[in-house]
């Protein structure tokens, strides 16, 4: 049977996400859509997001995709990426925007003003570039990915899960913070696997073959 994967149409580099999924799963049927019927028929759902949380939530709500996404989170593998990860939580400090409430916790901004890097330069926000990800908990998403591999990040906010057991990956920018989460059939990353070269493609491959 064809593996049907839907990338929820909304805000972000959807095309890159879809192309990365196609690259690791040439046999799969990968679509970009916000049609609830397409989402209901999908075997796996990817929720990307970029920019402001408010815009991402609004796009999800107005397209009618939100209810279908919530249905998917109860029965099928769902993966959030970047703001798509942040949206899974209760609340974002970025404009006090409520999220989907699938994971307890909130989204906060980097507080690095006045703090310097070891070489004397400033911490820049957004964090933009490649950083190491420590696999703080074993998860099928990490199969074939070396611990402390580099992934590509672009963000000013990050999620703080209330339940530490939901954190499966951490990175360090001024201080360690959570950058990958998992709960039941939901996984999500703050970094962009679709922009993280071989390590990122491996992560998508793991998601495509994951059967929680």
């Amino acid at each position: 049977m064809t593996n049907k994967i839907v990338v929820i149409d909304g805000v972000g580099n959807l095309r890159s996400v879809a192309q990365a999924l196609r690259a690791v799963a040439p046999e799969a049927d990968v679509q970009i859509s916000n049609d609830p019927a397409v989402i209901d028929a999908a075997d796996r759902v990817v929720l990307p997001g970029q920019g402001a949380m408010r815009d991402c939530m609004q796009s999800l709500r107005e397209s009618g995709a939100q209810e279908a996404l919530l249905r998917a989170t109860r029965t099928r593998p769902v993966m959030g990426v970047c703001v798509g990860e942040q949206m899974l939580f209760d609340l974002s400090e970025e404009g006090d925007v409520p999220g989907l409430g699938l994971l307890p916790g909130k989204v906060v901004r980097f507080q690095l003003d006045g703090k310097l890097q070891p070489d004397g330069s400033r911490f820049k926000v957004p964090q933009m570039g490649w950083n190491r990800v420590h696999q703080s908990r074993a998860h099928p998403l990490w199969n074939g990915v070396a611990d402390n591999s580099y992934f590509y990040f672009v963000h000013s906010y990050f999620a703080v899960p209330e339940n530490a057991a939901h954190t499966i990956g951490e990175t360090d920018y001024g201080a360690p913070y959570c950058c990958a989460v998992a709960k039941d059939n939901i996984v999500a990353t703050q970094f962009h696997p679709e922009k993280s070269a071989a390590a990122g493609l491996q992560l998508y491959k793991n998601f495509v073959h994951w059967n929680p």
Partner: protein
Amino acid sequence: MLAKRIIPCLDVTGGRVVKGVNFTELRDAGDPVEIARRYNEQGADEITFLDITASSDGRDLILPIIEAVASTVFIPLTVGGGVRKVEDVRRLLNAGADKVSMNTSAVTNPQLVYDASQKHGSQCIVVAIDAKQVAPGKWEVFTHGGRNPTGLDAVEWARKMESLGAGELLLTSMDRDGTKSGFDLGLTRAVSDAVGISVIASGGVGGLKDLADGVLEGHADAVLAASIFHYGQHTVGEAKRFMADRGIPMRLD
């Protein structure tokens, strides 16, 4: 710890990659998709495409190139050149660009930086600043490929672009560009220490030591170079190992 980035830059016109000296005397350097693939294999952290096409007729030629690159190269892609409207930003992002860079239009219409970052997020808005030294410790912003002075102080302009929503600055020394005499480290450090967003140093790389100096002395978050990579003088991998040997955090696979 966040790694410093090496960004090969591809100047594109008429569907080909070219390289000039001081923004003139263009030489053909190859097919953009092939070159992007090669740099990805060498471990490039990101790739920047600058569309240097002068006419608006030729402008749309960059879109299929970006689409082709984005379907096989899974690292961040930045595209600049000729971006005048928020709509131009949207089209480039839809074609597969992760970030869009604006230069002349940021000077003539700073509101564009604000509008584009409000619409698409700061993370995808890069402002390119071309600067020339005008006095010790003073640099002026130039536009139109270095031809037109603006009277703007480069450090103040960098701060203003940050406040309008730029997520990153691509800082080019017009004095050094194409000369292979190294980055203008004074300019790079002055701007990088003045802003809270990432700064890419550009213009003047002649060898690997120049790249390391850009980070260690210039405080650049990323370094951009073209000719040392295009003409096979060094691979991106060699450059990354050289920098890592000097204690710079680099992504080495």
